[in-house]
Structure formats: structure tokens, C-alpha cells
């Protein structure tokens, strides 16, 4: 019984070693070299603020406001900042707004559908920062 267990263990180890050698991963260097993905997306608060201003988010998502939702049940700007980032992307840019911002919606001319990933990231960070009470410095 014991020898069977030892034999099974050794066999498993041998199999794992073989599999590890055959499926040798590419070195990190090669992986990085092949893709050469350089993230050029940088966050500029002013630019992100301009996107929020152009979209007019604060027309409906009121700010400043201590509450998370207004009397209509709509999230305030603070309410948006309080959302998880992933939920925010889904909420703001994918499904919400009753289809107003879709290609056939009332606000189809809005830039919301044409924002690139970097602009969306910037807009999300700007909204999140609004709930973080970050000091704004001036020289």
C-alpha cells in the first residue's frame, strides 16, 4: 500500500517535471519585446475636466452635494464618485442614461460614444477624485 503511494507520488512528480520543461514559458524579456506595449495614456486633470464639462455631466449629476442621490433618485456627482470604477464605466458609458446617448438616442451628437479608452480612463479618474477631497494646489 505504502509503496503504491510512493510510486504514484514519484510518477506524478516526473509527469509535472516533464510538463514544466516541455511548456517552458517565454522569458519576460521576449514577451515584452514582442508586444512592445507602451502605455502612453497619462492623466491630466485639466483635460479630463474639459471632457466632463463638454459632456455636461454636472447638468444632471449635481455638484457639490453631500448626498449620493438627488430627489429624483439620480446619483449626484458625489454619488458617481462613490461608485466602483468598473460599475462606473458600465453605468456611465455602456448601459445607462435610458439610451439617450446611444446612436439613435436624443443625445446621439454627444461625444460620449466617441471617447477613446484613455479619455474614458481620465474621465473616470476625474469623477473618482471628486469624492477624495484632494487639495488643489496653486503656486
Amino acid at each position, binding site marked *: 500500500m505504502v509503496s503504491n503511494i510512493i510510486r504514484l507520488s514519484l510518477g506524478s512528480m516526473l509527469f509535472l517535471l516533464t510538463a514544466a520543461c516541455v511548456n517552458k514559458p517565454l522569458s519576460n524579456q521576449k514577451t515584452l519585446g514582442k508586444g512592445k506595449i507602451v502605455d502612453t495614456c*497619462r492623466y*491630466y*486633470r*485639466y483635460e479630463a*475636466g*474639459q471632457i466632463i*464639462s*463638454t459632456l*455636461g455631466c*454636472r*447638468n*444632471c449629476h*449635481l*455638484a*457639490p*452635494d*453631500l*448626498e449620493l*442621490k*438627488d*430627489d*429624483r433618485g439620480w446619483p449626484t456627482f458625489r454619488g458617481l464618485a462613490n461608485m466602483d470604477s468598473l460599475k462606473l464605466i458600465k453605468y456611465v458609458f455602456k448601459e445607462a442614461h435610458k439610451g*439617450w446617448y446611444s446612436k439613435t438616442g*436624443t*443625445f446621439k*451628437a*454627444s461625444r460620449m460614444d466617441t471617447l477613446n479608452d484613455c479619455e474614458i480612463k481620465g474621465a473616470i479618474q476625474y469623477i473618482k477624485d*471628486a469624492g477624495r*477631497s*484632494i*487639495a*488643489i*494646489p*496653486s*503656486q
Partner: protein
Amino acid sequence: MPTDLIDELKSNISLLQNQPLSGGIVAKNLRISDNGSGELTLYGDFTITLKVLDLTTNGAPDLNSLMTFTQQVITSKLRGGGYKSGINFLKYNAVKKAFDKDKTWTYSIRYNFNFSVNVIQINMLNQLRGNDFVLAVVDSIGHQFTDQYGKRHYSGGLTNGKGGPAVITYDIWKKNRYLGVHEFFHTLGLDDIEDHGKKERLMYHLDDNTGQSISDTERGDMMHFIMGDLRRMLKGNYSNVSNNTIQLLRIFINNKTNGFKYNKAKFR
């Protein structure tokens, strides 16, 4: 919303008693005019009050002059109202004088607002109300920031987010008289500009400004911030919501990462 409701009640009671309203923003005679072609003109008389709290150790002999200058510049920058197009909102029904809950529309908005700006000095915290705007003057600020070019700078002023209290170093304010306005415009919702190509703008904050201009977009954004909610235009008057300024200032000024040096005996 309870806070809004309480503020509105206070505002209405004060008006009925014919008492002057206190607070950062007090608005009267609000109304909307719809030209029927997608342009709304908003009218109103606004009183904006900024309270200045001197917390310097050795006093601030030039404070009155700086406050007068700040009041004049804020007034001149807000004069003439503003204009903003592409504003998505609920559709306005001019007959019912109400916004439709289900229909939407894209408007151009002309802000035809009159402003009366007060910049007044206070000596005690109990002279602050929950919805006041405040600028605290201190000896120095240890906080530093890194600009988008990677360069480090000392902060001459710090504002605690939109609508929040601001703190300013007296000596730097004396050197840059526009700094008080710059900080207050952060409170009114504007962001800093770091693009070297925009040094002529008031909100450019990397020390070597060549001018103090405000763009139409910035003016429109401030007007919107001051108004807050388009639906308020239907109520005739309002005072801005309580932001709990005293508590915000207390937390902000005691936050060690900001590195404020001031006369603590004056902060009472």
C-alpha cells in the same frame, strides 16, 4: 433631499421676514426664457460672499487692499454672464414653466446673471455658516506638487475641492495679487491649467503667468456651478446647500500633509 429642503425652507423664511440672506451664494429673481429654438436664457440676481479669515502670526497689514483687489477682479470676471452650448437636459415646457421628466433636449444656455460680490474679513469661526465660502490666510504652506512636466513646486494656495474652503499664504498673495481669485475660482469649480501654451490664463498655475484671462467655457462652468441645478431657476430664489464649511476647514487646516503654518490661537 433633507439638506436641500432645510436650506430652501430657511431661504424662504428669511425672504418672508425680509432679512438679508447669508451664505456663499444667494440668488433672487430667478427665471427662464425659452426662445423656442433650443436656447434658454437664464436671469437672476446673485450675491456671492467670500469670507477671509486672517490666521497669520504677525498680522496682515495689506489684507484689506488684497481683499478689495480680489473683490474687484471676481466681479469683473463674472460680469457679463456666460454662454454654453450643447447642454443636455430635460425638455423645458415654457407654458407649464416646468421641465418634462421624460423628454430630453439639447440646449444652448445664455446666463444673464447679475452679480454682487462681497469679500469680507471675519475674526472668529462662529462668523462662518455652513454654506459660506472661506479663504484662510496663513504664514506658509509646506505642501508641494509635481506638475505634468515632472517639476516640483511649493503651493502658494490650496483649495479643498470644488465648493470647499481655500487656504493661502499671505506673503505669496502679496507677490501675486491674483492668487486669491485663482483659489476662489477653484472653489467655483475651475481646474488648474499646466499647458505652457496657456500662460495667459488665470487658472494657469505654474508661476510664470503672462495674463489672467478666463475662457468662455470656464465662465460657463462657473455660472453653472453657481446655479447648481437648472430646476432651481423655477423656484425664484435659493441659497446654496450647506457644505459644512467650518468642519471642512477644520479638517483641511489640521491635515498635516498640507503643512499649514499659522497662528493656532487665532483659529477659534
